[in-house]
């Protein structure tokens, strides 16, 4: 168990370093940060001085080492655009993104899994066909298009829900929540649907196909031949076996939600990290972009760790006798 966790954590660190390298080294060469942050009246001499002060004239290796060191200490640098610590900006934006992502994930999982189970168990029922059609549309419509449609329909045409922003928020320490005000909750609905729809579709399809696959297995047939009740077979045996892949992929989808939020947040002007990221791409705000990448990577790594541990808990083959099942492919 300990070895397993240690191995996973080591892998996570390697992944994080790789991502940090990518985040840093690639963005280091995009655009000219100096020109993005000086005003109209800054002379070329002042620009050169600033360049030096920011360490942009140091060797790239030194810059990267400094970058990793700073990140490890929680210092994500100073935003070129806003001239304040990136970590502060992240703390402001994080609640918006997490609340949106969380609700989207709840929607995606809460609706996607039951839909998937249902259409797996009743693969030819009319409701399953409806689900299938919905999911086809769900994976075929780009999220930004869904967002625009929803805005037009609910914000402008019907006029019941806000088209942008987070509404009123309440401050709980450094965490600002929109969940305690009516306008905050209303503002959350459309973005959450937009963000959750695609993931919901994926999860539904995953559960359905896993369910179908498991239902075809011999042990399910054998369980029925043993005379077990349908409920026991479907939910005790079949569902539990679909759980492993479902948890893994659902975990990854939750991770994707945070990253996919870039698009949704842009469409809805949602003041979260994704929106900040896109803004920073447009203004070549390197510290923010780099920090965002690192953040997303860290998020994924943590989710992966959790998923691996869950998998470990659920699947006895992994837990008890790794040698029989661990010819690791990847």
């Amino acid at each position, binding site marked *: 168990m300990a070895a397993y966790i240690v191995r996973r954590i080591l892998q996570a660190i390697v992944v994080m370093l790789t991502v940090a390298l990518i985040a840093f080294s690639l963005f280091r060469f995009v655009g000219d940060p100096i020109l993005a942050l000086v005003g109209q009246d800054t002379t070329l001499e002042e620009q050169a001085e600033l360049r030096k002060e920011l360490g942009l004239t140091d060797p790239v290796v030194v810059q990267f080492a400094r970058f990793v060191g*700073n990140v490890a200490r929680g210092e994500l640098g100073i935003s*070129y655009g806003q001239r304040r610590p990136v970590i502060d900006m992240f703390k402001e934006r994080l609640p918006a993104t997490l609340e949106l992502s969380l609700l989207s994930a709840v929607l995606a999982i809460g609706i996607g899994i039951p839909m998937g189970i249902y259409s797996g168990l009743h693969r030819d029922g009319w409701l399953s066909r409806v689900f299938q059609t919905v999911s086809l549309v769900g994976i075929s419509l780009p999220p930004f298009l869904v967002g625009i449609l929803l805005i037009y329909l609910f*914000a402008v045409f019907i006029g019941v829900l806000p088209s942008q922003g987070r509404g009123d928020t309440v401050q709980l320490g450094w965490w600002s929540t929109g969940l305690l005000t009516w306008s905050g909750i209303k503002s959350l609905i459309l973005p959450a649907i937009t963000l959750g729809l695609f993931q919901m579709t994926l999860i539904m399809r995953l559960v359905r196909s896993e369910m179908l696959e498991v239902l075809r297995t011999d042990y399910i047939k054998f369980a029925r031949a043993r005379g077990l009740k349908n409920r026991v077979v479907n939910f005790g045996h079949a569902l539990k076996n679909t759980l492993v892949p479902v948890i893994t992929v659902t975990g990854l989808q939750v991770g994707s939600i945070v990253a996919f939020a870039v698009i949704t947040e842009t469409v809805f002007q949602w*003041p979260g990290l994704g929106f900040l990221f896109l803004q920073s791409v447009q203004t070549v705000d390197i510290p923010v972009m780099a920090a965002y990448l690192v953040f997303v990577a860290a998020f994924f790594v943590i989710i992966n760790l959790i998923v691996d541990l869950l998998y470990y808990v659920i699947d006895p083959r992994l837990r008890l006798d790794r040698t029989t099942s661990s010819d690791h492919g990847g």
Partner: protein
Amino acid sequence: MSIKGRFTRTSGLGLVLAAGLAMAAASPAEAKTFKWAFQGDPVSMDPYTINETLTLGFIGNIYESLIRRRKDLSIEPALAESWETVKPDVWRFHLRKNVKFHDGTPFTAKDVVFSWKRTLSQGSDVKTFVSGIKDIKVLDDHTIDIVTAGPRPIFTSEIPFWYIMSEDWAKKNKAVEVGKLTTEAENYANRHANGTGPFILKSREPGVKTVVVPNPNWWDKATHNITEGILTPIKSPATRVAALLSGELDMMYPAPTQDVNRIKGTKGLAMLEGPEARTIFLGFDLQRDELLYSNIKGKNPLKDVRVRKAMYQALDMNAIKKKVMRGNSWPAALLIAPQINGFKKELNTRFAYDPKASKKLLAAAGYPNGFEIVLDCPNDRYVNDEAICLAASAMLAKVGVKVKVNAQTKAKHFGKIKREDTSFYLLGWTPSTFDVHNVFYNNVKTRPAYLPKGVEPQPGQGQWNCGIYSNTEVDKLIELVANEIDPAKRQGMISKMMTIHKNEIGHIPLHQQPLSWAKKASIDLFQSPDNTFQLRWVTVK
């Protein structure tokens, strides 16, 4: 401050609920909250961080200068009660008494001196406002002498955006310098403000929202009736319109030209329109011997005035006005708008739209089949900037000049053209002084690097002259205009330099763009031609 520390201090379920209830209950009938949106966010609350209309305009609700502008843009006393010129280069300002900053400290002469010094500190982007100041002498707490570099008729128009900060407050909060962009702690004034103005900064979430409340102790009589103002930056024009249509906003600007009719036709909404003092124009690379990004090698066609004129006459500004701007633009022949000091109506006639003449000119210049060129264009700065560039490229294509449009976000666009990495670019300019000098000084005067030997540059001259237009006579006239006191003589010089520039087609002026503000009909507010929005003129009915 650590995350943990902050969190524990205010956490607790009771507080959560209380806060929630407070939010739910806090909407008394007489509260007049005013919500508005702009396409960008003020860069900082520090009045010296950036010289940008939006930022300075917003900060103007919180901070004040010695002098402010009236609705008609004429100047009137603000923190200075009155002033006179003791000598041509010495201005005596009598400061207003009993003015207090928002934190309660009184406003005195030392704050002006402090502000001047701070404006010159590292990181300041508004040095231009005080570039005319040689020295400030304190006579007493409420009297100062400002010594300018020579007679400077435009001085009073240079300082309305130069806001006065409190020395005590800045020192207490370690905001004495605007600040270097290093990993040091952020400049306190960046997200906090302490002015003397009609509104107090209540909270600031950069890029999300900024909240102000009225200053009950303001020295002037408040003409507004709002109890709270909330600014939300909304970049996407469609989203801004949607938010207004769905009633989330009381006012937003700029309203996309295409949506003006819809807004006008929507019950309860109204438009405020007018010409902005900003002129949009095209600039050329007039310096390189071989054009960048072109199929013409070894030559720069743009150096030939016939080519420039051909391009000028290929542009149908009326079509752009009708279709791109939906009637909301004022085709221009000069780099300055009619509101700007120095404007000459007689000169403001465009060379006629005439594609045939264009073709002839191109043929005469040796380019019967035209040439290729890249037009650098912002896509989020001016009204329909990208669409204008695209329309222009289609029009130029008809006379044989194949224009590729490189449209990008303003930060990238400005960076590119400022390092002279351009052959053809679109830019817009409003002189913050409302005087023609500012436009020519920045956009037409030769950049220092290109001056003949022995000519001493003035600081920052030609900073936006990205294509290096250079005419010694015009340069000279620009310098003379800065210091000429006699209005008639001065206008003569101005007309002369504008005529030279116009006939040389130094730039192609396109139009003045509209001010396009959309609001709820129940809101009264004043639209200033400099496109700054001032809360002190807002009334919520």
